[in-house]
């Protein structure tokens, strides 16, 4: 059990800057995110896309913004719990007990939800029949590539994951790559390699087809694919892999008894607390009259939520507002030598 002042759910820009604000006012926090890296949507959806509306930063990419935010909270040495997801929130004696998917447990007076639009999960095949093989022979990520040796593997998708795995597995498996159109969004070098492998018959490349059905009798035997014009083909398959990118799902957050408005959490704009005492929501996931889904709004919301946490984390102390330029206490926290 880890005891802390605040658990932040979500390591996107809003969560990161909120951690900074907590550090500035002397609170500790632990940050949980279900991606394997820090940065949230900025790093997962648009690491290379330029952002033009961060105050005082005329232009930066999602990756640069993330790196700068990480740099900014370095002095506080907060712990990140990546590839993990907060599953359960329970109130006991005015404290929140927080449990994660990987079995970590936290005790904290405050939880700040900075979860964007929810957690990222792989998009799955639309076909119902694929569900019963999910995790066994229908896969959306690869942990151990040796299982594919000498097997028939049908890969769906047109991005880098699909192309890279098709190239990689073609060394030791019978690979069929199926994509819904002729163009691929993967790196040009990979696309060229795929075309070569297809030309010399190392892999089967089938475009303008998508999945229709998976078939098997206990174990997976084949996958049926369809074109938009109605043709279908059946391909022998021991494994079917789908790489359609990630989607965002609210996930367990919906089950914590919070008021919800569609997929967002209503908050007050004084400290961004939700209908539950000690649970705050900031960034894209919160809503209030006039809410803007901008990173800069998330920064503001995080600063106020941090102050909101103070009274529960330090009930016997009075919060004092200080400027970073002038406060020696804050400079000590930042490790700044004068």
């Amino acid at each position, binding site marked *: 059990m880890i005891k802390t002042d605040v658990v932040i759910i979500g390591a996107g820009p809003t969560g990161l800057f909120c951690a900074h604000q907590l550090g500035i006012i002397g609170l500790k926090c632990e940050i949980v995110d279900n991606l394997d890296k820090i940065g949230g*949507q900025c790093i997962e*959806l*648009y690491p290379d*896309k330029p952002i033009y509306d961060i105050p005082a930063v005329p232009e930066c990419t999602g990756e640069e913004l993330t790196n700068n935010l990480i740099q900014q909270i370095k002095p506080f040495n907060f712990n990140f719990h990546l590839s993990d997801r907060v599953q359960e929130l329970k109130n006991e004696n005015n404290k929140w007990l927080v449990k994660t998917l990987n079995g970590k447990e936290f005790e904290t007076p405050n939880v700040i939800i900075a979860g964007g*639009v929810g957690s990222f999960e792989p*998009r799955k095949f*639309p076909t119902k029949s694929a569900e019963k093989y999910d995790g066994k022979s229908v896969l959306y990520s690869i942990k151990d590539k040796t299982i594919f040796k000498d097997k028939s593997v049908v890969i769906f*998708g*047109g*991005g880098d994951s699909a192309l890279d795995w098709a190239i990689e597995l073609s060394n030791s498996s019978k690979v069929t790559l199926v*994509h*819904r*159109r002729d*163009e691929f*969004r993967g790196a040009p070098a990979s696309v060229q390699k795929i075309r070569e492998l297809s030309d010399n018959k190392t892999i089967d490349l089938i475009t303008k087809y*998508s999945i229709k059905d998976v078939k098997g009798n206990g174990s997976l035997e084949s996958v049926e694919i369809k074109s*938009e014009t109605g043709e279908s083909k059946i391909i022998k398959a021991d494994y079917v892999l789908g790489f*359609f*990118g*990630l*989607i*965002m*799902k609210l996930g367990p957050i919906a089950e914590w008894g919070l008021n919800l408005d569609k*997929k967002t959490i209503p908050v007050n704009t004084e400290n961004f607390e939700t209908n539950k005492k000690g649970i705050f929501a900031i960034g*894209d996931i919160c809503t209030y009259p006039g809410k803007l*889904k901008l990173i800069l709004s998330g920064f503001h919301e995080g600063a106020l939520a941090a102050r909101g946490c103070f009274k529960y984390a330090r009930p016997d102390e009075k919060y004092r507002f200080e400027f970073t330029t002038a406060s020696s206490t804050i400079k000590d926290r930042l490790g700044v030598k004068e």
Partner: protein
Amino acid sequence: MAKIKYIEFNGTEHEADVANGLSVMEGAIQNDIPGIDADCGGGMSCATCHVYINDDEWFKKLPEKEMGEDDMLDQAFEPKSNSRLSCQLIVSDDLDGLTVHMPEKQV
């Protein structure tokens, strides 16, 4: 201003007058029309405002896809050759009478 018809997967029809300059996605969100999620808010980074343009004439008449739209559509639920991201369809008088069909689901 354009009158846009949104048809849910179950056949329920909605009509909205959408001001020029807004996207077809925003027209749905502002009028509480279900079936379009728009998780990323219009940044062409999520593929949850996916619609089908079933009328071929209309499909051809729409502004062409910009770079990246098809890449995002690869990641949509059941994309087809008449798929578009409704956040990329900017409303003008020319779009008056457009009908979009929503997929079975967005995520």
